[in-house]
């Protein structure tokens, strides 16, 4: 362990932590430490072992070897409840709030203040206000959680963790579904927690953010710690280099050199939420990006192309033919496919096998006298798993044992088998490691070159800039910018993301 970072009071030391899973060494003799009043960034590809390490710290897994020392005492815990008692709080990526209950109820879930045997609501609401004030959030504790925006829900989640008065707070990919404005708000909270002398562990795939907020950064690879250094030592390129051994500029494939003027796909839709009409077209050979702040109607728009919108009859133009799409069945038959935002709930059948997942949309195409041609099916699915280099033990393996990147490849594979003409992708690389990201980018480019109309919606600015030939920015349901080639810059996208809001407020005056 680097002596340079031992200058403040150490609250957590993990020594020689090792964890085996059948067939893999998930965490290999890892030393990790945290100081009070310090943000410790933890980065690494998916499967590098950072989640396993944090699950050990959170009491979800027991380490096979090694010690966890909190405030100079060795501790052992068997579940999260026990870990919490020793001052460990985790803010998960997937929120664990109950949507139909109020903010206060969620914050104090299970640890009700009581008068005798009766719950003391006044006290709970008072305490909730205190906790929310502590992180500078103006929110009525009696408000129902469900309709709140994701960013505010996350604040409630943080408040919930804070009620336990933890010394060590783990943020597990907290920014994965936040816009850049919301991220800066979250960072203010983290800074405030830091001032209050908490030790913070910050896990993220977004390296810029880690460089922005962390004081010390640990990089993990293949279950081992590659390096632990102060932030000043790192640049984004250096971080990537230690994570994967590849330079950043190599991540994205070259953009399209020539784009036909021929329209491959066009769509005319209507946004219910913003009462706006949207037209978009994709030219042959190009990758179209849809940007903007989160929740500006992008997802509803793209889902309606696939027949999932509330507007049940959507007209699309595909290679000079007009189709009416009422449901996903028709969409798929006309060659339109959609990679959903949340692959765990909308993309992959977690309890079914790899084969059943990849073959799910094409079963009817491999029939021989009404029966599935199992040999052909196996051949076709194997060709997909090879092409996408999906890491599996057998085609009969159940999907839920696969990593995030491999699950995303199952969804991609399912659609590749349908020979799509249009691929709409919502956050195609969310929670996916850099190596897999690179593969997905390469695949997207190959598809576009073959003439598939690719539409990507992503909240990662870097993907819009690095991957897309053309970017449409959406704002309150309208397209506010159509950027091509060199026009695609962070400044221009951001400007278009917020410009229309200004126009609207001027209109009101």
């Amino acid at each position, binding site marked *: 362990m680097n002596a340079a970072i031992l200058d403040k009071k150490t609250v957590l030391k993990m020594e020689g932590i090792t964890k085996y899973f059948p067939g893999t060494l998930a965490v290999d003799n890892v030393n990790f430490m945290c100081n009070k009043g310090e943000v410790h960034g933890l980065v690494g590809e998916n499967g590098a072992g950072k989640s396993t390490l944090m699950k050990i710290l959170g009491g979800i897994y027991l380490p096979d070897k090694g010690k966890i020392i909190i405030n100079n005492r060795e501790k052992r815990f068997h579940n999260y409840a026990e870990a919490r008692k020793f001052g460990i709080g985790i803010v998960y990526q997937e929120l664990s709030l109950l949507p139909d209950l109020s903010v206060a109820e969620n914050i104090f879930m299970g640890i009700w203040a009581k008068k005798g045997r009766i719950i003391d609501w006044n006290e709970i609401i008072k305490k909730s206000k205190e906790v929310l004030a502590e992180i500078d959030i103006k929110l009525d504790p009696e408000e129902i959680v469900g309709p709140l925006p994701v960013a505010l829900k996350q604040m409630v989640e943080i408040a919930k963790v804070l009620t336990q008065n933890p010394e060590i707070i783990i943020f597990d990919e907290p920014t994965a579904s936040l816009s850049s404005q919301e991220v800066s708000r979250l960072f203010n909270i983290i800074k405030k927690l830091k001032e209050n002398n908490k030790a913070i562990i910050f896990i993220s795939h977004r390296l810029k953010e880690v460089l922005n907020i962390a004081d010390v950064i640990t990089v993990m690879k293949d279950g081992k710690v590659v390096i632990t250094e102060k932030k000043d030592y790192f640049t984004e390129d250096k971080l990537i280099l230690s994570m994967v051994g590849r330079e950043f500029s190599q991540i994205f494939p070259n953009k399209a050199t020539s784009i036909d003027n021929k329209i491959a796909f066009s769509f005319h839709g209507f946004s219910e939420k913003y009462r706006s009409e949207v037209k978009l077209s994709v030219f042959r050979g190009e990758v179209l990006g849809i940007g903007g702040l989160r929740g500006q109607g992008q997802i509803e728009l793209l889902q309606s192309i*696939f027949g999932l919108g509330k507007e049940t009859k959507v007209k699309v133009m595909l290679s000079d033919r007009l189709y009416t799409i009422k449901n996903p069945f028709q969409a798929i038959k006309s060659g339109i496919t959609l990679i959903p935002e949340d692959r765990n709930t909308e993309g992959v059948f977690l309890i079914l096998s790899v084969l059943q997942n990849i073959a799910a949309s094409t079963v009817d195409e491999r029939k021989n006298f009404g029966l599935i041609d199992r040999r052909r099916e196996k051949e076709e699915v194997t060709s997909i798993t090879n092409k996408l280099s999906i890491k599996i033990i057998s085609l009969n393996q159940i999907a839920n044992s696969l990593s995030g990147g491999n699950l995303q490849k199952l969804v991609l594979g399912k659609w590749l088998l349908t020979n799509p003409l249009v691929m709409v992708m919502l956050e195609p690389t969310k929670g996916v490691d850099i190596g897999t990201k690179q593969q997905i980018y390469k695949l997207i480019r190959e598809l576009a070159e073959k003439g598939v109309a690719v539409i990507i919606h992503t909240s990662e600015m870097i993907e819009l800039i690095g991957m897309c030939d053309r970017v449409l920015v959406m704002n309150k349901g309208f397209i506010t910018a159509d950027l091509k080639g060199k026009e695609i810059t962070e400044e221009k996208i951001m400007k278009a993301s917020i410009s229309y809001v200004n126009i609207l407020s001027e209109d009101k005056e």
Partner: protein
Amino acid sequence: MKEKQHNLRLFVPIYVIVILIYITAGIIEPQFITWRNNVNLFTRITPLILVGMAQTFVVLTGGIDLSIGAIIGLTNVIAASLPFINTPLNIILWLLIPPLVGFGVGVINGFFISKKGLPPLIVTLATGAIWLGVTLFIMPIPGGTVSLSVALTITGKLFNTIPIPLLIILFFVLTGYFILRNTELGRSLYALGGNEAIAYESGIPCSRIKILVYGISGILSSFAGMFLSGWMFSADPLIGNPYVLNSIAVTVIAGTSLSGGKGGVVGIIGGAYIFYILNNILNLLGISAFYQYIAKGLVLILALIISSPNASIILKNYFKKQSFFDKEEFVK
């Protein structure tokens, strides 16, 4: 971690239990393993297997069919009310009408469940009550009769050696296995039970499949009803009642998950056998009917506990902790 989906391997434990029961019973009572006793046994478990398959198909999609008992009663009564003089036409009618009724009744369930989005539990409970009423209207007390030759064929032997019920069992279970494994319908059932939203977004015609699966459940239940009428040589409007619980018990014991998407029909012969033997033992011990109901309920709950994902997680964690401490002691 390395969980695999080998349909066949999933059913090994059941048949191990069956063989153990068989051997134990054979040692205690050698009469038990005689061919004659086994022929008798095939006849008795045939309706159980048919309803077990009906329920399994529905449960694989994540649904449940509580109207199975009423459909058995209805088709049982219809089968015993049709003209029973042996003419080719009469035999064809006898073979066709009950399954058609069963299918129609099942499709009605499926319609309300898929097109109206109502919960299967309530829909089938309600339609079950309706069909029970209709059955009692047709035949208030046990009675009716079926063609003698049909009755003798159903429980008889082919070439005087192979019991017909065994052939019926093998035909249905193998067909079911084949459908689940090799047809689009089978795939769709698993997909639907795995996650309906994803199935829909994968282009699987979910509502059509659901209607069809309740229809299939109706047909299989009607075969059970017909078999019972042939075996009893008459009808009883209330004969189906115990089969609701029995069908669920056989499904669960046979290794199908009630949350859908996992399981199959291969374990059903074993499941039905175990369930029947249990009944038989209780009878032999002279335990009265109400205790038998209590025992059946308890067995179902036990089977659910053993098959629930929670149970396996608890067991796994328990063994994990054990091994962790063991290792540590070893180090010291």
